[in-house]
């Protein structure tokens, strides 16, 4: 079994009209055994930047601690919050630093940039970024997520519609993946607020 499939996960980010959504499943598994059903894979970096990480849980936890440290240093030096595109660059270079002994995570970054323009970015485990304006996926259920997002995505969705779309896409995709599922967590980041909901999905 590939090391990226050791824990199992499904992460998706979608752009809407002046908002972005990022969602993940909540399974913490060790190969085929499910250990817990309340593991967070989407982490808040600050109000307008969230990162979701799919892959090996230990590297995800290590990286979250490292990102938080780097962000605090950034905020001390720059006296402002980091922009999502700058943070994506930071993540990319931190991952590439370990090019020949990488962290086994494939992150997805979602946030609101200048003038609250929606921003999403996904990378592979060595930091190769991809920027689009529709949706990005990662994890063991990435292939399922590609299919269902392509079918259900429409541009310029309002926050509530975006929340519905992302939730349905994620749940449909992880239901077909034995290594992901057991609950889902969705964040919709708007300029004035963040909608955070935990979904109870199929518990299998």
């Amino acid at each position, binding site marked *: 079994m590939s090391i990226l499939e050791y824990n199992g996960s499904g992460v998706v980010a979608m752009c809407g009209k002046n908002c972005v959504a990022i969602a993940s499943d909540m399974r913490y598994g060790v190969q085929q055994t499910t250990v817990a059903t309340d593991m967070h894979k989407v982490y808040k970096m600050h109000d307008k930047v969230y990162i979701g990480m799919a892959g090996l*849980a*230990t590297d995800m936890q290590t990286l979250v601690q490292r990102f938080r440290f780097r962000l605090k240093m950034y905020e001390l030096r720059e006296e402002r919050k980091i922009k999502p595109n700058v943070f994506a660059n930071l993540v990319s270079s931190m991952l590439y630093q370990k090019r020949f002994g990488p962290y086994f995570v494939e992150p997805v970054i979602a946030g609101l940039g200048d003038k609250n323009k929606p921003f999403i970015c996904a990378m592979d485990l060595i930091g190769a970024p991809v920027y689009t304006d529709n949706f990005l996926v990662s994890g063991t259920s990435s292939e399922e997520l590609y299919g269902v997002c392509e079918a259900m995505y429409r541009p310029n969705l309002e926050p509530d519609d975006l929340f519905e779309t992302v939730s349905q896409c994620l749940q449909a995709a992880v239901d077909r993946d034995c290594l992901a599922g057991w609950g889902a967590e969705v964040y919709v980041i708007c300029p004035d607020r963040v909608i955070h909901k935990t979904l109870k999905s199929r518990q299998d």
Partner: protein
Amino acid sequence: KRRRLTMADILLGVTGKDYVLLAADRSAARSIIVFKNDEDKILELDSHKLMATSGPQGDRTNFGEYIQRNLQLYNLANSVPLSTHGAANFARRELAEALRRSPWQVNSLIAGFDKKGPSLYYMDYMASMHKVDKAAHGYGAYFTLSVMDRYCVKDMSLEEGLSVLKKCIHELQTRFLLKCNSFILKVVDKDGTRIIDMDGNTVEPPKPKTFNKSDDSDSKADE
């Protein structure tokens, strides 16, 4: 050949209303040989923390003692003990940093009682940590996690927790291939850590084996 992490060590843990109960099997064995049947795999990190470890004997004891001694150093240096989350996070950091140098092949369960109440942390040998209410490591997990899911309830009393563990141990003794006759049970609550037996009565900690000739009853036969 490098020591490999086997899954044969059994570690179980349940959290209740105001305690955490850990159970570990008592056999130290590798391959087809059983070295001893009275091994204590649950380490007292300090007065209100326990760490149950599984893995090759050297890694297991080395890692456990390293964490224990560093926590005692923290206690002495800062005059205040670390919280359970802090201790678990410290252990996780050590494992994570060693992961890409010379990894410890130690699965562990860290249990503690602090201001926030009882907590149990599941930690993989690769240093992925998660706070849980019930946990098991190794092959034992395949047999007992479902029993725990069925019988554990929120805010269990110690008697209820013990009855769940008894069911788990019975399941292991019925269906698990490897003989698991004896378990060591330790509980941590607001009064600290103690060793208990299956009925909840406190037992004395096992006396460490000494090697003085005068203590050995066999030597009297030689005289």
